[in-house]
């Protein structure tokens, strides 16, 4: 008797396989490169990401396509999010080059770890079973822990990495605990089967399901950085090298969103009433704490960390609406937020020079005098984050609010807009520092960046206007992903 072995269809996982193979290749090639040829590693890494994007586009299915025994799915959602993750990865790699050179940490491992983290995110995005979600998450997290500690001579970075590792491991443990209870109740790890089983078990086992759900939501909230599980975020943002903060602050948000969709919507959709309530509490707390505490920050990276927390609140608002429109809104919000954050950190990273770490808000003073172009780009990012039209941030807020109002939670929409007015203050303060304050002594030099960085950062920023003027296309993709 021969064992039944069904050969899985590997094609949908082509992008991941490309990533994995190329990441290993980069790792090996980098070993043989002298320091002055390090640029080749960067080139190869960017090529990997471009290849991955091409592979995603090549295998784009017309309907959702499941393989590996139901644990891996390639659908419209996965396609859009993977392209976004890889695209942002390219921005991150290019922006961080000069920073890494200036801080003597221009090593191939940065790119290899980044590629593995991206691979982890892609796995998360396509995961259709608890196991694969966890696998992707851990691949991402372990790469990030190492990246935070990348500058080994920096005390504060090591401290951050330690903190991140301990807290992250705990959160993973909580998530795993929730998964194990679900496995106990439903007897399966496949999210589709979990969904079917939960529908049946809902009446018999409400306590166990609610208990397990709580752990899943806590784990998710930690990874997304929602209040009250946000404590790691400001410390990590501040302590990590800015190039790593740039990475942590952008792409993983998209992966976190994917994880929330896969777990809560695909797997536990029948518990929507329960998790909506939990997410409501998390969202309000995140909006409140994020926006209010950001006002008190003097460190730009910390301020952006709290700003991230408040934006996570908005993403949760879209999710908790529990409608396809709400998920699409949250997706739009997440992607555009990642693009906007890339601009903000991108400009900050440009300000760094050898021996000078720009991270305080005061370091930005008078930027309009020394570098009007970069000041304008950062101003765009700030206004977009504040939700001022015609930038894309306004649109993101609009669609989320609309989803919330559609399910008759007008009070929640009012809470959200009032907190975003509070948030407006600290974004305006950045503008004020750049445009109205006299220049700081260190800030007198003009930034001279390589052409590729300038072009990419400019295009990145102008996309905030372009997406704000013509949000239809991206929005249509988001809507399509949930129809």
């Amino acid at each position, binding site marked *: 008797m021969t064992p039944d072995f069904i050969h899985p269809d590997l094609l949908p996982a082509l992008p991941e396989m490309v990533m994995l193979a190329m990441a290993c290749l980069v790792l090996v090639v980098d070993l043989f490169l002298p320091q002055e040829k390090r640029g080749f590693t960067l080139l190869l890494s960017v090529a990997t990401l471009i290849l991955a994007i091409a592979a995603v586009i090549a295998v784009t299915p017309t309907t959702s396509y499941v393989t590996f025994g139901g644990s891996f799915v390639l659908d419209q959602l996965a396609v859009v999010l993977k392209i976004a993750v890889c695209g942002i990865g390219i921005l991150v790699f290019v922006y961080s080059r000069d920073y890494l050179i200036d801080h003597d940490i221009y090593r191939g491992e940065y790119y290899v770890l980044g590629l593995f983290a991206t691979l982890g995110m892609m796995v998360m995005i396509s995961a259709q079973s608890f196991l694969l979600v966890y696998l992707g998450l851990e691949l991402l997290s372990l790469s990030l822990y190492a990246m935070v500690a990348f500058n080994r001579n920096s005390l504060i970075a090591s401290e951050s990495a330690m903190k991140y590792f301990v807290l992250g491991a705990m959160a993973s443990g909580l998530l795993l605990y929730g998964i194990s209870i679900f496995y106990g109740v439903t007897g399966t790890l496949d999210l589709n089967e979990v969904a079917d089983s939960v529908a049946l078990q809902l009446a018999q086992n409400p306590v166990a399901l609610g208990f397990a759900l709580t752990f899943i939501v806590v784990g998710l909230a930690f990874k997304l950085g929602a209040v009250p599980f946000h404590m790691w975020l400001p410390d990590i943002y501040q302590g990590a090298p800015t190039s790593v903060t740039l990475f942590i602050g952008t792409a993983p948000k998209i992966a976190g969103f994917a994880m929330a969709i896969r777990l809560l919507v695909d797997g536990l959709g029948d518990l929507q009433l329960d998790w909506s309530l939990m997410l409501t509490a998390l969202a309000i707390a995140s909006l409140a704490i994020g926006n209010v505490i950001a006002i008190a920050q003097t460190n730009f990276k910390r301020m952006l960390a709290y700003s991230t927390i408040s934006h996570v609140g908005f993403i949760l608002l879209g999710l908790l609406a529990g409608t396809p429109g709400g998920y699409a809104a949250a997706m739009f919000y997440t992607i555009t937020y990642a693009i906007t954050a890339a601009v903000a950190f991108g400009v900050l990273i440009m300000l760094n020079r050898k021996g000078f770490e720009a991270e305080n808000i005061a370091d930005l003073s008078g930027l309009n005098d020394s570098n009007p172009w970069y000041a304008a780009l950062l101003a765009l990012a700030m206004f977009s984050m504040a939700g001022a039209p015609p930038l894309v941030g306004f649109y993101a807020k*609009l669609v989320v*609010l609309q989803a919330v109002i559609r399910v008759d939670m007008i009070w929640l929409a009012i809470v959200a807009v009032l907190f975003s007015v509070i948030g407006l203050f600290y974004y*305006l303060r950045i503008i004020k520092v750049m445009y109205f304050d006299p220049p700081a002594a260190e800030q007198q030099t003009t930034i001279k960046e390589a052409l590729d960085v300038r072009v990419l950062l400019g295009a990145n920023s102008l996309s905030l206007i372009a997406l704000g003027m*013509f949000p239809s296309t991206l929005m249509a993709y988001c809507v399509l992903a949930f129809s």
Partner: protein
Amino acid sequence: MLSFAIWTPIVGGILVLFSGDREPGGARKIALVFSLLTFLVTIPLYTQFDTDTHMMQFVERHSWVDVFDIEYYLGIDGISLPLILLTSFTTVIVVIAGWEIIQYRVSQYMAAFLIMEGFMIGTFSALDAILFYIFFEAMLIPMFLVIGIWGGANRIYATLKFFLYTFIGSVLMLVALIYMYTQAGSFAILDFHFLPLSLTEQVLIFLAFLVAFAVKVPMWPVHTWLPDAHVEAPTGGSVILAAIMLKIGGYGFLRFSLPITPAASAELDWLIITMSLVAVVYIGFVALVQRDMKKLIAYSSIAHMGFATLGFFVVFRIMNSGYGDSGAGLALEGGMVQMVSHGFISGALFLCVGVMYDRMHSREIADYGGVVNTMPVFAAFMVFFAMANAGLPGTSGFVGEFMVILASFKASFWIAFLAATTLVLGAAYTLWMIKRVVFGAVANDNVAALADVNKREFLFLAILAFAVLLLGLWPDPLVEVMHPTIDNLLDHIADPKL
């Protein structure tokens, strides 16, 4: 057509921005060309305007964000046309007024005003609620920068206050707009006009609009940002603020509050009438004691805009009093005329203060005295504009106030009585300032050394004086344009659409 009016200045602004500061003269010239071009583009809007219909004209309607039914939907009627002309006219004046005065970052200054002009024209012509909101908010950004970069000593406080105040008002409006979208299935403002809403819904939506527009007008008690913003803003910023931005609040009442929530407006008209009368009387007294000329004019603006809002919301009482639509139409038209006229007069007064400030670097009334001896031509202009501000017959200031007071009599004697106190108060604070600043003996050496207006200053003051006089003696062209629209609006609000 309307798109040209919106995008010409914005494109011009971007060009000016990229022309850089190395050649400030070039930036000025490009800015002037584009502002004149925009003014020329808006003139056909008036000449080809059909005064026999209340329908939207020059309509442009394209699908924009089709996923959410947001359209690029433009059109104007008799309410928006005068305000668009006022905008394009004032921007030309502002560009000329900032010609030599602004030496710091000229291109950014000129670009800010041109881009702002595009956004303001957009606000007045948008017929899609989200498009309106986008323009409404977007214009704050250049104004924020104008006050913050070229403003006075306390500019940062003032500009943050300005931005936060207006933003907090408008976010509630955004929630109301989205709510109506979920009910109506479209963001078109004209669809909202015919959307049936229960009284509770209407009241809540009305209050959301009230916060947004009352801050913008500004009405007492949310007016406190205005004196700060006006005092700290550069002259051009003050002119645009007073002449156009405040009008957007009044325009919002006419375009949104009255037609969308007529039942709530009728129910809560006492609130607006009270707020307007407090603005007229109390703020009038506050203006009387100001020592800073710009602050005085700012408070006078609040009082005069109180007239406009009074005219808009007194209509329900007039209609119920049995005088019928003619009195109500008078009130609405009076409010509109008052807004346009205030645009000219307050703009002119801020320019006058600017002319003196450029020479003396002081806005304190006490630092002046006897200016007429050294600047006779200028003094003539300033006295003329002050008279117009006080409502002298023959100037545009008289027409609007007179219409509103006349209409108010049909509603209630006391409303009219309190409104009419402005004729005394307005005269008192304006003329007292004139007496202290312009007349009397030469106060000090600085005043003695003053030089009279140059050609550039003479030019813009003369143009404004002509406009004020024209509108005062012959307001018909303005009133005719808005007549069918106002009549239609009155018919519309008579139906509470519950």
